[in-house]
């Protein structure tokens, strides 16, 4: 049940057809993994906390660096040198005390990923490197947990939603693993993509709208264009190829 204070706080989104009080209660009960508290993780966690998502588990093992501050808007000047999780925890609690914020200082790896995501409703991939993204994708498929992918470089961004058993996964899209390299980025780019990822989370939890499944949304800020690449599950996908599809989404 929503409290009178919650009804007032979320009034404007409760007004949205399809959300209502029932949808807001679903958001309140939702448990979300946010993997990464950087450029993407900042807007994702801010908007999900503001929207009243019940539990946010934020995983990151980095400390705030000065060069992060052009885009990682959850972290400020005074946070340089602190763990991003500590900085995130403080800000999000101030934003919305109704949200349960769990922070974990750890680097996601093959040994711990299953334990970190088990029991959660949805994973948001806000990582800064492809190997960990693929690891999250694999774990999402194994545990049948939806995963919202987002990535940025320069003025460009990408987003897609993976619903295991129903839609293509990240490995159906990307078949190769390029070497890790330092990437350029305009601060507003992860702002755009992070907001799209947060929107997908809210749509999935409330069960409304058309998810970004089987299509990659590509944002080009330089020419201010959004385009889509439609693609299907890859039958020989090393990650989800052995899963029987429930139906098309």
């Amino acid at each position: 049940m929503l409290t009178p204070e919650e009804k007032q706080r979320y009034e404007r989104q409760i007004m949205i057809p399809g959300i209502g009080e029932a949808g807001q209660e679903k958001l309140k009960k939702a448990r979300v993994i946010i993997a990464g508290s950087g450029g993407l993780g900042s807007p994702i966690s801010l908007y999900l906390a503001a929207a009243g998502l019940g539990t946010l588990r934020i995983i990151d093992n980095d400390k705030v660096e000065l060069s992060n501050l052009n885009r990682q808007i959850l972290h400020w000047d005074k946070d340089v040198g602190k763990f991003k999780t500590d900085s995130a925890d403080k800000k999000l609690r101030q934003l919305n005390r109704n949200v349960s914020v769990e922070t974990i200082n750890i680097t996601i790896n093959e040994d711990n990923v299953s334990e970190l995501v088990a029991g959660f409703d949805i994973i948001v991939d806000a990582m800064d490197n492809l190997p960990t993204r693929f690891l999250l994708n694999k774990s999402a498929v194994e545990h049948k947990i939806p995963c919202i992918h987002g990535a940025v470089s320069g003025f460009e961004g990408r987003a897609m939603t993976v619903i295991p058993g129903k839609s293509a996964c990240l490995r159906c899209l990307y078949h190769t693993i390029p070497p890790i390299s330092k990437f350029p980025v305009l601060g507003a780019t992860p702002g755009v993509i992070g907001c799209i990822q947060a929107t997908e989370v809210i749509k999935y939890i409330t069960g409304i709208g058309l998810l970004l499944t089987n299509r990659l949304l590509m944002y080009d800020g330089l020419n201010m264009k959004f385009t889509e690449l439609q693609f299907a599950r890859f039958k020989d996908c090393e990650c989800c190829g052995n899963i029987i599809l429930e139906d098309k989404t």
Partner: protein
Amino acid sequence: MSAEVKVASYLMQYTGGKEIIKVEGKSVRECLQDLIKQFPDMEKILFDDNNILRAFFNIFITGGDVAFAEKLDVPVKDGDILTLLYIIGGG
């Protein structure tokens, strides 16, 4: 076979501002060779010094096939569209 290569905005600086380029070829490899013939600057973007397609690129072909470094001999049909997708992973 006559096909089209579609490039993302970032790559248009190497294709004279064109997003869609008509190419000839029976396989993805041949189509990329024709693309490079028309726009030589694309060679270093697409291929490394050993003439291997860089791991950043996955090529989506109308109908659902995907080509990448080890799979450039995927056949191409008349009218196919080859989307050159490069991977980004930053966050």
